[in-house]
C-alpha cells in the first residue's frame, strides 16, 4: 500500500525530472538575462546600457539587510536615507531579511520583478544569495552588497571590516599583553560569514606574530548579549586567569562585560561594530575597545554606489570582479573615544 503511494509520487517526481531533462529549462540568471536582453523588455536593456538620469528619471532603490532591528541595519538605513533623501526622484524601501536565506531570496526575486533600479543587499549567507544576485544582475539591476557580500561577481561591495577587525584586535591584544597571555573567543552563530572572517583575521595574526598567546576556548554566543553573558560566566568558572576576550560583535561584548563586572575581574573585552552603546561601555571602562565602523557613512556609501551604477548603467556584465569599497577600520579605545563625535555615533 504505502510503497505503492511512494512509487506514485516517485512517478510524479520523475515526470518533472524528465521535463528538466528535455532541455528548455533555464536557471534563474539565464532566464533573467534573456528577459533583459532581446525579447520583451528591450527598453530596460538599453537603459541598462546607457544608464538613467540620476536626477530626473524615476528611480527605485531597495535595501535588504540580513535582519532588521539591530543598530547596524538601522544606521545603514539612516545613512542611505540621508543621502538619497536629497534626490526627489528616488524612492527608497527597506525590507526585513529575517536572518533567513529563504526570505532574502524571496524579497530579492520580488524586487527584481518590480524592476527596482538597484538593490542594496546584506547577504545572510554568501553562497545562499549568489543565485538571486546573479539573477538581479542578469536582469540589469545592479546589486551592491553591504558588509556581507554574495559569493558571485556583482556591481559592488561596501565591505564592513571583519577580517581586518580581527587582525587589528589581535594586534592590540598582542601588544598590550606583551605577546603572552590567555584569550577566549565568544563567537557568532556557527556558520555566520562575518564571524568566520573576524576569527580568521584574529587567529592569523596571533599565529604569526604572537605564538605565545594561547586561545583557551571558543564558544558561540549566537550574536546575543544574554548568551554571551552566560558563555562568559562559564569561561570565568572554568579558567582562573583570562587576559582578553574577543567577541564577534558589540552586543556580545556588552554581555561579556556584564559577566566580568559581576565576577569583578579585570579582563580586556573587545567587540566589533562600534555601536553607541558599546562606546558607552568603553567610556565606563566596562569594555576595552571595539573596531568602529561608521555605519551611517557605510550606508551612504552604498547609496552613492547605487546612484553611480544606475547612472552609468554598469552591472556585473561589465565587470570581471566585484569592486570593493572598504570602510576604514577605526580601533576605538578609551584613549581615542573622543574622536568618535556625537554625530558619528549610531
Amino acid at each position, binding site marked *: 500500500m504505502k510503497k505503492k503511494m511512494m512509487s506514485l509520487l516517485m512517478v510524479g517526481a520523475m515526470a518533472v525530472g524528465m521535463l528538466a531533462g528535455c532541455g528548455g529549462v533555464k536557471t534563474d540568471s539565464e532566464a533573467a538575462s534573456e528577459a533583459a536582453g532581446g525579447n520583451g523588455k528591450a527598453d530596460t536593456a538599453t537603459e541598462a546600457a546607457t544608464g538613467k538620469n540620476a536626477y530626473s528619471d524615476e528611480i527605485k532603490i531597495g535595501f535588504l539587510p540580513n*535582519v*532588521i*532591528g*539591530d*543598530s547596524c*541595519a*538601522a544606521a545603514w*538605513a539612516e545613512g542611505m536615507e540621508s543621502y538619497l533623501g536629497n534626490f526627489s526622484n528616488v524612492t527608497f524601501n527597506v525590507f526585513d531579511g529575517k536572518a533567513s536565506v529563504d526570505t532574502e531570496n524571496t524579497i530579492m526575486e520580488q524586487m527584481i520583478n518590480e524592476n527596482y533600479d538597484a538593490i542594496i543587499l546584506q547577504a545572510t549567507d554568501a553562497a545562499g544569495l549568489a543565485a538571486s544576485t546573479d539573477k538581479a544582475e542578469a536582469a540589469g539591476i545592479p546589486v551592491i552588497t553591504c558588509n556581507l557580500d554574495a559569493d558571485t561577481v556583482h556591481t559592488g561591495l561596501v565591505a564592513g571590516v571583519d577580517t581586518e577587525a580581527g587582525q587589528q584586535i589581535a594586534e592590540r591584544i598582542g601588544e598590550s599583553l606583551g605577546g603572552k597571555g590567555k584569550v577566549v573567543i565568544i*563567537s557568532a552563530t*556557527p*556558520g555566520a560569514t562575518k564571524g568566520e572572517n573576524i576569527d580568521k583575521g584574529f587567529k592569523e595574526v596571533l599565529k604569526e606574530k604572537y605564538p605565545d598567546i594561547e586561545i583557551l*576556548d*571558543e*564558544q*558561540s554566543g549566537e550574536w546575543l*548579549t*544574554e548568551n554571551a*553573558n*552566560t*558563555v562568559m*560566566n*562559564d*569561561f*570565568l*568558572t*572554568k579558567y582562573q586567569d583570562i587576559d582578553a576576550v574577543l567577541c564577534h560583535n558589540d*552586543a556580545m561584548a*556588552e*554581555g561579556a562585560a*556584564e559577566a566580568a563586572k*559581576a*565576577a569583578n575581574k579585570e579582563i580586556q573585552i573587545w567587540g566589533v561594530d562600534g*555601536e*553607541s*552603546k558599546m562606546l*558607552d561601555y568603553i567610556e565606563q571602562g566596562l569594555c576595552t575597545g571595539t573596531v568602529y565602523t561608521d555605519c551611517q557613512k557605510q550606508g551612504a556609501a552604498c547609496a552613492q554606489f547605487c546612484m553611480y551604477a544606475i547612472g552609468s548603467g554598469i552591472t556585473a556584465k561589465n565587470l570581471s570582479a566585484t569592486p570593493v569599497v572598504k570602510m576604514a577600520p577605526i580601533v576605538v579605545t578609551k584613549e581615542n573615544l573622543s574622536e568618535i563625535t556625537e554625530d558619528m555615533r549610531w
Partner: protein
Amino acid sequence: MDKKPDIRKILGKSQRIWILAAVMLVLTLLQPGVFLTGANMKSILLSISVYGIMVCGTIFPILLGGIDLSVGAVAAAAGAFTVTWIVDHGFTDGAVAVGVLGGLFLGAAVGMVHGVIVTQFSVPPFLITLATQNIVYGVAQLLTENNVIACMEPASFAFLGGGRLLGVPFSIWIMMIMAVISYIILGKTVFGRNVYAVGGNAEACRLSGVRSRLVIIMSYVASGLTAALSGIVLASMNRQAIAKAAQGYDNYVLTALVVGGASLMGGEGSIQGAIWGAFLVGVISNGLRLVGVASDYHGVVKCVVILAAVALDAHVRYKKSGLQKTSPFFKKKEKAKA
C-alpha cells in the same frame, strides 16, 4: 500521610531526578572542582532565569491542555515598551515603575486576547498564539523603530536584570519568587485546583460549577504576564530594548515543560518539574561549554537528553494509564453526536 510522596512532589517525577543526577554526576567527574561550585550553579541559574520566569506562567495554559507560543514575542514587546517609556521619560525611577507596569499590562492584555479567542471560538491555542506572534513582534518593532534602544540607567531598572541580592543575581531571585508564586497558586489556591481540574475534564468541572472559561482566560493572562516580566528582565539584563529579543524563547519554554513532564494533554505537570526541566537543559549547555564541546555539536547532545526525558515520560505515562493515542493538543470539536 507518610513523607515520601511529599519529597517526590518537591523533586518532580522520580525518573527525572535520576536523569539530572546522572548528568550532574558525569559533569562533576569530568570537571572536578569546576562544575559543582556555587559560582557555576549561579551562572547556570542565571542562564535559565529569563525563560525560567516565563515557564512559571506558561505552565498554566499547558496544564489546561493548551499552549502559548507567543511568549517570546510578548517578552520582546513588553521589554520594548518598558525601555522606550523609560527613555522617553528621562530615566527616572518613576518612569521605571510606570514602564514596568505598562509592560506587564501589555503582556496581560495579549494573554487576555488569546484566552478570549480560545474560549469563544474554540480555536486551537497552538495556532492562534502562533499567528499573534507576528502581530506582537510587529508591535515590538513599532516601539523600537527597528533600532537598539540602549538604557543604561537608572540603577533601579538595571537592578532588575543585572543587580545582585546576597550575591545572587536578582533575575534568579525573580525566577525563584515567580516559581514560588505559581507553586502557591497551583498548589494552594482554588484557581490552581480549578486549572488542574479543567485540564483533566472540562465538562465535569462545568457541571460541578467551575467557571471553566474564566479559568482558561486567566491562565493565558498569567502566561502573558510572566512572558512580559521576563521580557523586562531580559531588557534590563542587556540594558537595551530590541525588537527581535527573546526570539525562539517559546521553544525553550516548551522544552523545559516537556522535559519537566508536563503532559501537554492537560491536567498533569508541575512547576517544580518545569523548573527542573529548565535547569536540566541549563546544566547540559553549561556542561558542554565547560567540557569544551564545540558549539555546533551542542544541539546533538541536548536533543539526546531531551529525547531520553520525553521517551521516559511517555513510557511512564503509558505504563501508568494505558494508551493515550489521540493527539494531546487539539481537543476534538463536538461532533454531531449520534
